[in-house]
């Protein structure tokens, strides 16, 4: 009987081994382990055995049963895996074909630059202020120490709407307005970005509409060295830690002293090249200490309060930073231009 069981086991395992599909395995399972199968038959014949032999054979029969079942299970799982593998293989696709497109939009390069600068100054405790694009002559000029007939009004020929209203020529009126709202008492710490307009014929370097961004800090005991420190922080964050700045004298009617800020040229590292016109420096912005007339007109006592202001052109910064060669690109909205700067 023992031999019979061993033989059955060998037979069964061999058949399992030979089975090539799940159905074949099912057949083996029915044939050997089914209710009418040979092992069941052996077990039925156990009655004829002696008391001593009965448990031994019973145990052996169970072992044989289990090992066959185990072999079938393992083979079945292998066959299933193979079948799945085959099926998945058949489902394979060309992964190099393009995916279903997602429409990707992005900000205008000028917006990216403006927001970058905004965030940088917000980090230094500045607020963002906005003001009207159609300004009064008073806020655009007079409140900024540019009385009627002042020669510096020539510097920025303007689009007038009426004698008293014009398209603002700079964002400085926002400074005058903001100061005016404080009644000459509280400190002001602000950045004002916006569109400005001048009587220029549009060409590669001129645009009748462009963007300006100005900053103003008014408080007790503001020093020119503070201006230098703030601009240095700005320049390093905006253009890179390895950049140096320098201030050199200039003139604006609303600041005194007035300076222009240059940064060291990235192209040549200050050695002089065509980008920096051999000087090693690139002009970035104008700045200065707020003119006492401007403070006075806004209601601040220039003996007690002082401040600094600075202004820059995001177009120019974009042109320097990204090598944009024609200012008109910012306003024609060529989609190839717009898409190019999504990551900016």
């Amino acid at each position, binding site marked *: 009987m023992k031999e019979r069981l061993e033989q059955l086991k060998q037979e069964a395992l061999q058949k399992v081994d030979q089975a090539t599909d799940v159905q074949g395995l099912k057949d083996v399972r029915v044939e050997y382990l089914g209710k009418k199968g040979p092992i069941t038959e052996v077990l039925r014949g156990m009655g004829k055995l002696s008391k001593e032999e009965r448990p031994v054979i019973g145990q052996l029969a169970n072992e044989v049963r289990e090992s066959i079942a185990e072999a079938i299970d393992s083979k079945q799982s292998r066959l299933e895996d193979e079948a799945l593998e085959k099926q998945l293989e058949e489902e394979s696709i060309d992964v190099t074909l393009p995916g279903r497109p997602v429409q990707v939009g992005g900000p205008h390069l000028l917006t990216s630059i403006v927001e970058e600068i905004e965030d940088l100054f917000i980090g230094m405790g500045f607020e963002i202020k906005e003001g009207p694009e159609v300004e009064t002559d008073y806020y655009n000029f007079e409140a900024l120490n540019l009385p009627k007939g002042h*020669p510096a009004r020539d510097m920025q020929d303007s689009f007038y709407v009426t004698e008293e209203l014009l*398209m603002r020529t700079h964002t400085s009126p926002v400074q005058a307005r903001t100061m005016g709202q404080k009644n000459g008492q509280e400190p002001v710490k602000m950045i004002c970005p916006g569109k400005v307009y001048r009587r220029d014929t549009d060409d590669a370097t001129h645009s009748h509409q462009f963007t300006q961004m100005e900053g103003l800090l008014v408080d007790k005991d503001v020093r020119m060295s503070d201006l*230098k420190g703030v601009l240095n922080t700005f320049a390093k964050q905006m253009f890179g830690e390895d950049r140096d700045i320098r*201030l050199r004298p200039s003139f604006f009617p609303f600041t005194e002293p007035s300076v222009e800020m240059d940064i060291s040229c990235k192209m040549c590292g200050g050695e002089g090249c065509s980008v920096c016109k051999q000087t090693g420096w690139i002009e970035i912005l104008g700045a200065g200490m707020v003119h006492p007339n401007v403070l006075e007109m806004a209601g601040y006592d220039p003996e007690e309060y002082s401040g600094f202001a600075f202004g820059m052109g995001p177009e120019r910064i974009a042109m320097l930073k990204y090598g944009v060669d024609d200012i008109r690109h910012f306003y024609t909205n060529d989609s190839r231009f717009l898409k190019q700067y999504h990551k900016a």
Partner: protein
Amino acid sequence: MLVSLNWLNELIDVSDYTPEELAEIITKTGIEVEGVDPVAEAATGVVVGYVKSCGQHPNADKLSLCQVDVGEETLQIVCGAPNIAEGQKVAVATPGAVLPGNFKIKKTKLRGEESNGMICSLQELGVDEKDVPEEYKEGIFVFPENVEPGQDAIKLLNLDDKIIELGLTPNRADAMSMAGVAYEVAAAIDGSYTLEEEQLDTVEEPASNYVSVQVEDAEANPYYGAFVIQDVQVGPSPLWIQNRLTASGIRPINNVVDITNYVLLEYGQPLHAFDFDRFGSDQIVTRRAKDGEVIKTLDDQERTLTPEHLVITNGEEAHAIAGVMGGAKSEVQDDTKTILLEAAYFSPSVVRQSSSDHGLRSESSTRFEKGVDPNRVERAGKRAAELLQKYAGGTVLQGVVSFDELDRSEKQVTIETSVINKRLGTEISPEEIGQILRRLQFTFVQDGEVFHISAPTRRGDIERFEDMLEEVARIYGYDNLPFTLPQGASQAGGLSLNQQLKRKIKAYFEGAGLDETITYSLTKEDWATKLVSPEVEREAVSPVGLAMPMSEEHSHLRLSQLPEMLQSLSYNVARKQNDLAYYEVGTVFISEEENVTKQPREVLRASGALTGQWLAHPWQQEKKEVDFFVVKGIVEGLSELLDIPFEYEKGKLPDMHPGRTAIIKAGGKEIGFIGQVHPKLQKAFGLKETYVFDLNAEELMSQYEKEEAFQTIPRYPSVSRDIALVVDETVAAGDIAATIEEAGAPLVKDVQVFDLYQGEHMEEGKKSLAYNLLYLDPNRTLKDEEVEAAHENILNAVKEQHKAELRS
């Protein structure tokens, strides 16, 4: 201002510096140097030659055959210039010479005759055409007598000079003269310079015997000085004067004119020389011009004047427009014998008015406009008289005949060292400040840390403490200021809620696949009123126009961003970029006045314009043109993002497709519109189907409520039911949905259309709409009967209100 380095070096020793170093120093202390350039391209091997003989070339009519003594030898040279003549001293490029343009001179044969070099014109030596004196424009240059054969012609002509170009800001009028530049450079390099006293010899006879001066408007003309110089001989001026004029960009003309120009450059004081014999009287009267008075100026133009202009007259007729240009009648000519020399102070505003009215900006007017040094006016006259005596053979009569109410006082400014340091953030000592003031040559009285300063009149820009603060700071050096950060109480910077919302809205559009555009606010008059949202249209009486536009393209302020956005689409489509999805958040300008007197209201709007393919996926054969619902989806997304429900009502707007346009409302207010651009307008822009939207971003911001309380996530299951209805095709799906929501409240939480069918198996004029309804009670599980009841209610309502039948 063009500064000759050779000239400057004679005024103040700058030989220790390379031109580039000097430029850097000048830039950092005060005035931006815009360039350092050679006066002419380099040339070598050019010497003075004496034309010993000059005859006709045997084989060529237009050529001469010359024997030229160049010092060590005599060369035979063939010359084609019409003005070559025996006895001249000329510039000769000897064999081996290199002229500008890398033009190498070699021995050669011309028409059979040996030519051992070239006799040069100024142009060939690199002088700018405009700076070449009239008489040498068509030929070779001829040196004056006092040069020797063999001398270096390049040096003699000052062509080895370098020109420093200064970019002057309006406050630095003082640097519009060589003297001013020398003072500035002296301060910058701590050198020394003083404008030398004039050396004028006069005869006994006073000028007042010949001329009188009368000024009618002392405010416009506080000083007028007249010098009389007799027996002048008009001819070429000395080479050094010509050279310095040329280097400064002024063309030499004759000695008299050159000398007035030379003094203009040297002192910064414009002068004018009249031919006294042609002046026509012995009295000078300066006055306001009469209305309609006419003068023919030096450039042969007839100019009509008004009382806003000041003229110099002989008592009757005008002989010059003060400070701008002389008259043709009394112009100095070759036969002029007596010079009436004017040295005057004209008020900046009067000169500015004249020069701008007549479009005449001259070396004179630009200096008067900025204000000349009152203490240098008469001195400049003396200096010119001195030079006329030396270089034009003139006899200077004694004295200056003048009218004089000129304020020559120096401005007094007091500065305290401690305040300077407080404003700059520095620790400059009083000694250093004293040193800086000495470098600037400002006179001062020091009282401990306090300085009482008299600002020289050449520096008209110094008026108050802050001006001196700048002087001290720039000479001390901005490089020497420390880097500090503001000490004041720090405030939290940040964006206002509206600024945050603006960024949020923009980010949403970008996430939805739109690119941001920035278009012009100033547009064509015709476009300014196109595609305007109805609520803007009602408010704005007419678009705001510029008083004096530069072009029709940019003459009016926009009432809608869309026309310029369509222009951007059109620009791209013309360049074969057909699939475009743009948005812009910007301002429109609304005025309620016909004739604007007040600032227009500036309203922020969010607009979009889309055309072409939307999310095409070609290899899967999926193509989708942008349509109304693509764009509406984008707008609906914004509504959802801001949690502001939008209502859409079919509407008709000019320039929009009459069947595919909706007015958008929020909170019961009209806030914008959406739809297809009218095919006629599309065509005008060269566009195919184009869809737009335009929303009042400011209104959206004001309706926005920042959600603060947490809304519980429902714990109980919702029940979903579908309903298919047959209605007349004119019934709007949105209206039915609204009815369903109303009738199903409060259990119905969401209604979505999931099918629209028209056509086969459907009665003519009818359509089928299928909705999916979501029922929910947040507090418990709904029972079937409750849902049934609500559903029944809804069916009754749509039947009643829209004649809707349940689709069988």
